[in-house]
């Protein structure tokens, strides 16, 4: 059965209530049927008793009549009066007796059946026939009383002989069967009593049923006539039919059902008398109806109790279920805090406890999983996902309480080198150490420190602004200044930090993050350590981005042009070589410096082509310059990618051959870090190149993780001291020391030493004094287009050289 209920509770209640109502209804109906049946049986019994009462009354009245008539009949004086035919005396005696018993008929008949004396008001049409019949019956020893109908009115008559000592007369005395009879019978039997007659043809008209008396309203009583069987008025000749027939039926009068018993008291000589006994069924049912009503009240009360009981039961069942559903919904949302407490020992209690255990297990597992998802195991810091989530929450918070916040993005400098040189394990230790210091520095509970990946860390500073964030960033960087101990050695740390504020810099988390990153890269590029995002960075960044996409086009369309910077011998002031530098002659931006695009070219893999182009151009110019009598070497910078290209030596050979150049015409500059990416392959390449007779120099010496072990192994001819040590040499004694030591180191290893960034005479002099072999810088010559070199060389040869040397 499909019930239109969604909840278990209403289903249980509905089922219970339906069951009780059905049971109650069946019981109710059964009792109703039984009561009806009983009422009818009881009515039938009452009708039977009523009939008995009726018969008794008739018999008793007959006996009363007989007795009083006998008393009169035996009176000597009365007999004497009869014998002397003294009618006056007889009449008064009859009247006297009649008055005594209140009889309605008092007559004297002769033994021959002749009416002789009459007393009282007799029916006008009283007939002798029935009386003679009565006398005859009495004479022959039959019933001494009989019922006779005169003019539709029934009479109970008795005939008593007057004997002297033979019968000399008959006393006929009788009662009219009237309302008093009906009332008397009703008094005893509590039944409605009616008498209905049908007398023989009086004046030729068809005999009709006639209601002679009744306890009921006469109009109502008339309706009982219809129930009399039609054959009850048929004459049964010669047969005495007193009390002969009885019929029970039910008739409705004025909407009231009556149990009815018809008793045929007379059917003789076309005279019929029927007594109708009636009992109202509804009246009989009345006491039962009270009972029924009580039962109904009990039924309703019972139903209510049942409803209440079933509701309670259903609640008992569904309440814990509802609680479970609620908890399950919370679980669905990821809230595992709601515990389920159930002390009941039934199945639902069991279910609740099992459910609660499940909740705990799921919570525990989810905690593990989310830890994995949101946690960086190495540094024991949250990861990028968590960081991003937190940012979202912070941004949501802002909408509620306007708390601004800052995002700090930090990237370690030279981490890659640590990783390469000291190995992954050491790098991991380094990261752990950094994480530890970051945590120490950001002790505020609301701050979030996360590892975003690799050597990149992110920090959210709650409720802060750019200036405050800047201070925190500086504090962080200060914390990193103390070297970190790794396997008994110490590593210096530095990092770039980018700061972006919410909502000042971005209202979108992604944008905010990217802007913090932009600021970070800006910080790193500008060799400062911290940068707060500003829109200018964005523009630069956008330029970068567009450059990345345009590099490819530049390579294809040969938008590059070769610049060179002279390399001068300190001792002689002669032009010995040039360093080849690339410039991007961008169609819209003009000249773009390599710093702007080489890193992207390295990242995008275009660096190989650029390097190849540089080598070709360098060779071409070298050949040109040779043909013009300028025999100088051209140095080309190679990137890490170039060094792992195993075809590089072959390509070099090709280029040299193409321009019919000797190997020493081309020299290559490599940085220490470019070897560190894949030292084995790089070393192999470098060795093969060296074997070809091509000169190699270490560029930017002193800035990277200089490994003397590698330096020892590398087949280089030259060291180039980084400009950062040279530029301030005239003011900074330390730089002097470093440069001096480096020159000594180089010389001791049999290498020439080159200094870059010489911007004035003083520096030139210091370096010369320190024994540096070659120099490069604005002081001698800025980078220039390759084709202008010849002019510069001519000038240099003409006077500049002197000027330098002499000053």
């Amino acid at each position, binding site marked *: 059965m499909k019930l239109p209920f969604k909840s278990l509770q209403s289903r249980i209640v509905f089922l219970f209530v339906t069951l009780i109502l059905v049971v109650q209804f069946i019981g109710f109906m059964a009792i109703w049927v039984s009561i009806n049946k009983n009422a009818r049986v009881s009515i039938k019994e009452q009708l039977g008793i009523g009939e008995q009462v009726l018969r008794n009354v008739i018999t008793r009245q007959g006996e009363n009549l007989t007795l009083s008539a006998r008393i009169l009949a035996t009176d000597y004086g009365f007999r004497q009066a009869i014998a002397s035919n003294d009618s006056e005396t007889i009449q008064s005696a009859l009247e006297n007796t009649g008055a005594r018993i209140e009889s309605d008929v008092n007559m004297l008949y002769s033994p021959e059946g002749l009416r002789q004396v009459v007393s009282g008001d007799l029916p006008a049409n009283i007939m002798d026939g029935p009386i003679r019949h009565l006398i005859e019956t009495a004479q022959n020893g039959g019933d001494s009383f009989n019922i006779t109908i005169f003019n539709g009115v029934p009479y109970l008559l008795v005939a008593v002989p007057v*004997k002297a*000592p033979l019968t000399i007369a008959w006393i006929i005395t009788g009662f009219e069967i009237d309302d008093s009879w009906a009332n008397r019978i009703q008094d005893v039997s509590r039944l409605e009593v009616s008498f209905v007659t049908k007398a023989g043809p009086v004046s030729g008209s068809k005999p009709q049923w006639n209601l002679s008396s009744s306890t009921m309203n006469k109009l109502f009583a008339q309706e009982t006539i219809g129930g009399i069987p039609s054959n009850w008025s048929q004459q049964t000749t010669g047969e005495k039919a007193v009390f002969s027939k009885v019929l029970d039926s039910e008739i409705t009068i004025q909407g009231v059902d009556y149990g009815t018993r018809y008793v045929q008291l007379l059917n003789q000589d076309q005279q019929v008398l029927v007594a109708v006994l009636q009992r109202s069924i509804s009246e009989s049912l009345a006491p039962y109806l009270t009972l029924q009503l009580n039962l109904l009240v009990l039924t309703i009360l019972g139903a209510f109790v049942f409803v209440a009981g079933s509701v309670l039961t259903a609640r008992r069942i569904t309440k814990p279920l509802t609680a479970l559903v609620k908890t399950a919904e919370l679980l669905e949302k990821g809230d595992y805090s709601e515990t389920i407490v159930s002390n009941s020992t039934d199945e639902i209690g069991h279910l609740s406890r099992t459910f609660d255990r499940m909740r705990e297990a799921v919570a525990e597992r989810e905690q593990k999983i989310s830890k994995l998802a949101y946690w960086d195991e190495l540094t024991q810091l949250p990861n990028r996902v968590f960081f991003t989530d937190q940012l979202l929450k912070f941004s949501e918070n802002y909408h509620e309480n306007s708390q601004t916040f800052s995002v700090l993005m930090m990237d370690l400098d030279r981490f890659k080198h640590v990783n390469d040189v000291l190995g992954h394990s050491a790098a991991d230790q380094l990261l752990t150490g950094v994480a530890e210091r970051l945590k120490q520095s950001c002790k505020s509970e609301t701050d979030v420190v996360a590892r975003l990946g690799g050597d990149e860390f992110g920090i959210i500073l709650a409720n802060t602004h750019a200036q405050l964030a800047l201070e925190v960033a500086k504090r962080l960087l200060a914390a990193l200044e103390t070297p970190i101990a790794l396997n008994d050695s110490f590593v210096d740390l530095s990092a770039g930090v980018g700061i972006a504020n919410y909502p000042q810099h971005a209202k979108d988390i992604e944008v905010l993050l990217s802007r913090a990153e932009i600021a970070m890269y800006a910080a790193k590029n500008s060799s400062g350590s911290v940068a707060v995002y500003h829109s200018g960075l964005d523009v630069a960044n956008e330029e970068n981005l567009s450059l990345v996409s345009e590099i490819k086009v530049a390579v294809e369309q040969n938008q590059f042009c070769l610049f060179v910077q002279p390399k001068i011998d300190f001792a002689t002031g002669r032009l010995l070589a040039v360093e080849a530098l690339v410039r991007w002659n961008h169609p819209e931006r003009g000249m773009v410096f390599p710093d702007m695009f080489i890193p992207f070219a390295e990242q995008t893999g275009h660096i190989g082509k650029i390097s190849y182009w540089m080598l070709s151009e360098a060779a071409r110019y070298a050949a040109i310059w040779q043909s013009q009598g300028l025999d100088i070497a051209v140095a080309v910078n190679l990137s890490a990618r170039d060094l792992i290209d195993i075809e590089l030596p072959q390509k070099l050979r090709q280029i040299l051959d193409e321009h019919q150049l000797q190997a020493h015409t081309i020299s290559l500059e490599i940085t220490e870090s470019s070897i560190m990416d894949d030292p084995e392959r790089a070393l192999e390449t470098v060795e093969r190149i060296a074997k070809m007779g091509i000169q190699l120099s270490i560029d930017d010496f002193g800035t990277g993780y200089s490994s003397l072990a590698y330096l020892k192994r590398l087949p280089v001819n030259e060291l180039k001291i980084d400009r950062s040590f040279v530029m301030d040499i005239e003011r900074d004694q330390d730089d002097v020391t470093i440069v001096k030591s480096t020159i000594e180191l180089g010389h001791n290893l049999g290498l020439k030493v080159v200094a870059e960034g010489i911007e004035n005479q003083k520096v030139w002099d210091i370096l010369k004094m320190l024994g540096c072999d070659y120099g490069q810088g604005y002081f001698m010559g800025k980078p220039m287009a390759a084709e202008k070199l010849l002019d510069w060389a001519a000038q240099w040869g003409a006077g500049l050289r002197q000027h330098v040397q002499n000053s």
Partner: protein
Amino acid sequence: MFKSLLALTYLTFAGVSASLCSLPLQAADLTIDVVDTTGSPIENAVVYAEPENKAAMPPASAIVEQRGKQFNPLVSVVQTGSDISFPNFDSVRHHVYSFSPAKTFELKLYSGVPTSPVKFDKAGTVVLGCNIHDYMVAFIHVVDTPYFTKTNKSGKATLRDLPNGNYTLKAWHYALAKEKEIIEKPLVFKDAQNIVMQLSLKHFMIPAKK
């Protein structure tokens, strides 16, 4: 007791016969059988012959006694002018009455023999009753002739020494179908002869003693 009553009656008849004997007339016995319509004999039927010429005869007397709260005999027949005495042999008293037109009288509560007998001087039937005892009944048939008798149990009666002559023979019984009707038959009596008379009777119960 019945026999003694009969004896008395015979004595009476004997007296009558003696007076007739002085006349030079032939006489003989007339026997009558009284039967009902089925031919069964009827007891206590009164049979009497009325001569054409009235014969003056001295009236006789008779007794109807009350014994055992019953009249005895049940049926008596007497000639007009006869005196009947009603001796009471019971310990209780009786109140003998008659409302019959032939003789209306009453003997109020008495015991023993009443002081004077009652004279029945009118022919007809007298029904006797007792006001104390409703069931007591007796019949006295008073006739105008000296020649009367009643039937015995076998329905036979004999008119002894009935002189020859013309008579009207009559019979009466208390249960005659038609009350007050007397059966008549003309009779020319010459010699002893036997006559059968048929009576139509109705059912008539003499009330039993209670």
